[in-house]
Every structure is written in structure tokens, then in C-alpha cells.
């Protein structure tokens, strides 16, 4: 009785399925066509063309492998990568932070590339000590190919300091005094952005390291509740809770507004790294100053070093092609290109690090020097979740006075102590 209707429906749906399968799905190359590697990354400046140029160069010089890059904002990066990997879709190779290694690798999300690295002829150019950033503690397998790293420092606005008659800080207490002196809400001027939003845990940890604290002690136990840590944390929180020296929105800000504020002179100081050096020089020119992050008493400097490297996802169909792309990025010319661009960070290759401008620019020298005493996030599984959400939640609660600094550190410690 409804044969006609059924027949029509079946015909329609078959046509629809065929149509959708043909033009609705994501492209996948097979056969003689070159393999396309899907590569994901985040960028500090999405309007910069360096990465696009690199991809174009690679595609022009390689016949069998082509790369297609997609930029994802850092705030959403980890969730999207996880979701895509767990669906088996999305990227084949991806940029990754060392924060996530402790979560990605044990879960089986990223591939063990030790064999690819051993067979790669460019491996000797990589600075030896940096390989560890791509390994899990106590394990020799390489999961992440180092690419660019940073050590965090303190930018300050010389003009604002001169106007207020304040000396650049060398200790943490001086920093706090300076922040207070440079704050004038009526004029829309503030001392420092605490960046309680995405990515803020890096500048916080740099401050903590400089303040004499540590994430894990010599035995590998989580040490965030030590007296030094509590003191350093209190100082950090006091920028908002006592001095009110942060601009509105600071406690939920991610990098973009922090950078905008500093570039516009709204804030007088910013903790970041060489990745933004060129952009800040362009906007602030001679008013830009760079300092090591103030330590407790001006001695024993320490800061955070953070590696951004490249990983191959376990779900990738053609890992060789993916490795070809990421290893190409770590050869001399592409490394120089990215490191000297406006988004450039410190190169991981000896050949590039030993040449201009890294061997000659005084500010970059400062960063390289700091790498000697810098520490990084340990590759604990909880670090990824801390970076994804937990740090923001806990620091925001503390900055709003809904919990004490000690409670914040306790919560973070509990997270890091988990398996």
C-alpha cells in the first residue's frame, strides 16, 4: 500500500548517501596520489604567515608527501586534539606542549617515534639535553620531537617605569612594590596581568620557580605545599587580592588580551618569552625592556622552560609521511625561518643556536642563559588536566578570595599526585 512511498524513500536515501559520501566527507588520498598529512598547530599570532610559508615550501620540495595545516586556538587545542584522536579522525601530526606529554603518551594517543628518530640523519643537530622533554620520566622512548622552546622572562615598559620613577625590580618584593606604584585605575593603568585564563599556569610556575619553589622534590614527591611554595604563591596572588594592580578581566584572561594590554601600555609588566619578542619590539620599540623573573632575594635565578614539539598521532595511517614533515621542520633552514619570524622562539638545533641572532642579540642571550637554571613541568599525568582547566579554576577561586592560596596549592597537589 505504501510501496510507492517506500520505493521513493529508498531511492532518495540511496542517492543522498551516495552524494554525501562523495562530497560530504573529509578528503582522504589513496593510491598514487601523494599522501597528505593533516597537521594541527596553535599560533601565538594567527595573522602571521610564517607557518603557511613553511608548509608551502615543504609541499613544493616534496613529491610524495604533502602537508595541510590547520590552526586551532590554544584555549581549545587540547580538547579538540583529544576529541579528534579519540574519534580516530582529524590530525595525523600535531604540535604539542610538554604539559600534555604525561597524559597523551601513557593513554596511547601519540605514537612512539624512537625508531624514526634513530633512523633520521638530522638527529645529531638537536641540542642533546632537550631530548628529555619528549620522553617520559624513566623511559627512553621518544614521543615528541623537540621544535621550539622558551624560557620565560619579564617584559617591562621603560617609559612607564620612568614616568612613575620606579626602578626595574630585581626581587619579588620589589616587583610587587613596582606593580602597586604603576597602578592608577582612574587613568586606566595597571601593573601586571595575572592571566587566570588559558595558559596562565606557565607564567605562574615561572614565578614559583623563581621564588624558590618546586613542583616535585628530589625524591619525585609533589612539593607544591612547601613553605617556599606557599610564600611565592601568596606573593603572586597579592597582585590582585591586596594590591588590586591587575586590569579588569585579568583573572580570566588568556594570552591575547594580556599581550594587547601590554602593547597598548595598559599594563607595565608582562611575563612571557622570546616568542613575542619581535612583536613587542615592533609595538614598543625602545620602551621595551627585558629582565629575568625576579627571585626571592635577587640571587639563585630560576624560571620555567617549556618545549613545544611535534607528535605523531597513533591513529595516523601513514606515520612515515607524518615524521617526514615534522623532521623537516627540525632541519636547519626551516628552523631558522621559524625561529627568526615574529612568532619565533628559541631553536633546538645547535647549528641555528650558535649563529646570529641567537648568539649575538643580548635579549636572546638572556633567554638562553636562563635555560641553564630553568626547570620545566614534570611529565606527570595530572599536568595536562591542570593545564586544561584545573589551574584556571583554582587560581580564579584564590584570586577572588573564595579560597586561600594554601587551599589552591593543596588542590593542585592532589591532582598531580593522582595516577
Amino acid at each position: 500500500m505504501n510501496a510507492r512511498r517506500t520505493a521513493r524513500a529508498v531511492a532518495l536515501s540511496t542517492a543522498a548517501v551516495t552524494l554525501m559520501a562523495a562530497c560530504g566527507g573529509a578528503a582522504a588520498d589513496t593510491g598514487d596520489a601523494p599522501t597528505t598529512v593533516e597537521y594541527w598547530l596553535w599560533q601565538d599570532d594567527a595573522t602571521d604567515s610564517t607557518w603557511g610559508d613553511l608548509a608551502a615550501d615543504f609541499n613544493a620540495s616534496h613529491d610524495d608527501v604533502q602537508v595541510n595545516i590547520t590552526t586551532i586556538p590554544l584555549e581549545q587545542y587540547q580538547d579538540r586534539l583529544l576529541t579528534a584522536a579519540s574519534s580516530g579522525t582529524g590530525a595525523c601530526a600535531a604540535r604539542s606542549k610538554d604539559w600534555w606529554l604525561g597524559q597523551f603518551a601513557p593513554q596511547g594517543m601519540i605514537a612512539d617515534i624512537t625508531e624514526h628518530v634513530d633512523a633520521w640523519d638530522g638527529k645529531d643537530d638537536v641540542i642533546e639535553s632537550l631530548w628529555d622533554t619528549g620522553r617520559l620520566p624513566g623511559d627512553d622512548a621518544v614521543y615528541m620531537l623537540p621544535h621550539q622552546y622558551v624560557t620565560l622572562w619579564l617584559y617591562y615598559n621603560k617609559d612607564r617605569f620612568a614616568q612613575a620613577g620606579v626602578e626595574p625590580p630585581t626581587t619579588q618584593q620589589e616587583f610587587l612594590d613596582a606593580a602597586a606604584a604603576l597602578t592608577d585605575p582612574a587613568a586606566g593603568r595597571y601593573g601586571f596581568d595575572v592571566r587566570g585564563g588559558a595558559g596562565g599556569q606557565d607564567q605562574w610556575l615561572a614565578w614559583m620557580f623563581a621564588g624558590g619553589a618546586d613542583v616535585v622534590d628530589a625524591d619525585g614527591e609533589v612539593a607544591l605545599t612547601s613553605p617556599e611554595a606557599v610564600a611565592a604563591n601568596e606573593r603572586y596572588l597579592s597582585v590582585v587580592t591586596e594590591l588590586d594592580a591587575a586590569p579588569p578581566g585579568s583573572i580570566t584572561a588568556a594570552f591575547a588580551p594580556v599581550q594587547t594590554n601590554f602593547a597598548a601600555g595598559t599594563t607595565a609588566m608582562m611575563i612571557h618569552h622570546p616568542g613575542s619578542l619581535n612583536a613587542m619590539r615592533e609595538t614598543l620599540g625602545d620602551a621595551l625592556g627585558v629582565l629575568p623573573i625576579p627571585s626571592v632575594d635577587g640571587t639563585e635565578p630560576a624560571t620555567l622552560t617549556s618545549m613545544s614539539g611535534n607528535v605523531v598521532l597513533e591513529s595516523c595511517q601513514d606515520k612515515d609521511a607524518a615524521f617526514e614533515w615534522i623532521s623537516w621542520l627540525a632541519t636547519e633552514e626551516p628552523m631558522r625561518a621559524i625561529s627568526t619570524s615574529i612568532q619565533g622562539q628559541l631553536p633546538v638545533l645547535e647549528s641555528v643556536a650558535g649563529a646570529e641572532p641567537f648568539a649575538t642579540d643580548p635579549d636572546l642571550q638572556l633567554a638562553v642563559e636562563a635555560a641553564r637554571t630553568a626547570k620545566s613541568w614534570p611529565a606527570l599525568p595530572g599536568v595536562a588536566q591542570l593545564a586544561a582547566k584545573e589551574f584556571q579554576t583554582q587560581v580564579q577561586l584564590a584570586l577572588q578570595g573564595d579560597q586561600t592560596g594554601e587551599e589552591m596549592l593543596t588542590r593542585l597537589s592532589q591532582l598531580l599526585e593522582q595516577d
Partner: protein
Amino acid sequence: MSARTPNLSRPTALTLPHVARRTGLYVLLGVWLAAILGPYVVMLLTSLTPSSQLAAAGASLWPGEVSTDAYRELLGSTPFLTYLRNSLLVAAVAVPLALVCASGAAIALSRFEFVGRQFFMTAVLVAQLLPAVLLVISLQGQLRVLNLLDNVLGLALVHAAFATPFATWLLKGFLDSIPRELEESGRIDGASSWQVVRMILLPLLAPGMVAAGTYIFILSWNEFLYALTFMQSTSTRTLPIGLHLFIGEYQIRWDLLTAGGVLAVLPVIAGFLIVQKRLVAGLAAGAVKG
């Protein structure tokens, strides 16, 4: 037509209460319109402001000079049009699919007596409870097995399934309000059951279908969570996901973001102006059954 007809024996034109009431009405209407359209107007103005002016601290509504650079950049160097196309494709599949399923179910529930009828009626209501947040985890695995992840068809199926319960409820209410005399006379005239449905019921159902179809389109066009999870490639992303990426990526490029917003909302505004009358009528007959 209006339900607010005053006593006809009183002259209406110039009495003070009447003037006051009319003024009050227009004031309220004006305030409401401003509240509704305000944000869109702000968005439009921002999209026409040159980016250099926006970066300067301080808020000012009117652009010093009107610039369409943002639109040019948006359409030229971002995948915005791809996102738009994908959203349209998904909706184009989801709407007919959901309508077919919902009409069938509505006809069954309204015109037939069968075992399990009560169960299905309750199920339609309970199905509204289903949160995307709960289902998305399982659906991700299912679609992967079916190889429908990152695929317009997969998302369209999920949208259609999600929209069908409410559409069914709407259409059933609509059907309930249609008297059965026509069908009965059709049957007396010898038409088969299917012919009765096809030639009498379905045409009568048309206004209800407009309401249901509009609802399904809106749901699919706006849907965020499933699209966020299932569509990972640039070539398959839908508009809401594309806009979301823009927000993080170009956080300081509000001109670009608002240009995208303006373009994304124009088809919706146009569509609504067209269907609003039928929509209200369809809702009136369908939803008011309560």
C-alpha cells in the same frame, strides 16, 4: 482578529486612556525592539569599523570611517564560505529526513490505535529530556564504527534524530486539531488508507510542516556540541564551529569576527520574516493543544 477589542459602544479615538494605552504600547514595543536588535546593530557597526580604530583602547560605537575590509578578508582568506556551505548541506539533509519521520509518527499517534501507543506518546515527551552532553560520548563511537564521523551525512542523521521528538509532538497536536470528516468522506468514497493520507492529510498538514520544518532547520543550523565533536576537518566544519575557532584565533580581530556574525545571521533574519506568519499559525494549532 485581535483579542483586545474594547466595548464598541465607546468612541475610541481620542479618549485619554486610549491614547495613554497606545503610547504605552508603542513605548514597550520600541524598547523591546531596541533590546532585540541592539546587539546585531552593534555587531554590524563593529564589522564596518577599520581594525586599526578597534585596536585603540576605549569604546566608541560609530566607526570613524566605514570600511568593508573585514568582509573582504573574511570571505577571501578564511574558510568562512566552506563553513556556510557545510551548515546548509547538513540542514538540507536533516530537515526532510526529520519531517518524514515526524510526520509518520504524528500520523500514527494521532489517527491510529495500536499496542504501545501510550508508550510512544510518553516516549516523545521523555525524549525531550535527552541532553546532547550525555549522548555525544556514545554517538562518537557509533559514528566512528559507521565511518560517518567528519561527514555531513553523519551529523545530519544525528540532528534529525534529535529534532524528531519535538517535531512529532508539534505535528501530532496539529493533526489532532484537524477534524476527521474529510478523511472519513474520503474513505467512504473508496479511497485506500494510503491515498487518504497522501491526498487529504498531508496537504492539510502543510502549515504544520512549515512550523516543524522551521524548528528543525533552526536546531540544525545552530547546533554546536555535536558538530564540535564530530566534525574535525576544515572541509566539514559547520558555521557555529567555524565561528568558535575564529573567536579564539582572532580574539583581537573583532572586525573579522563581527563580519562573520553578520553574514551568519542574515539568512536567518530573511528566513524568519518569510515564514513568521505560517510559523505562528502552525504553533497555534500544534502547540496549543498543550
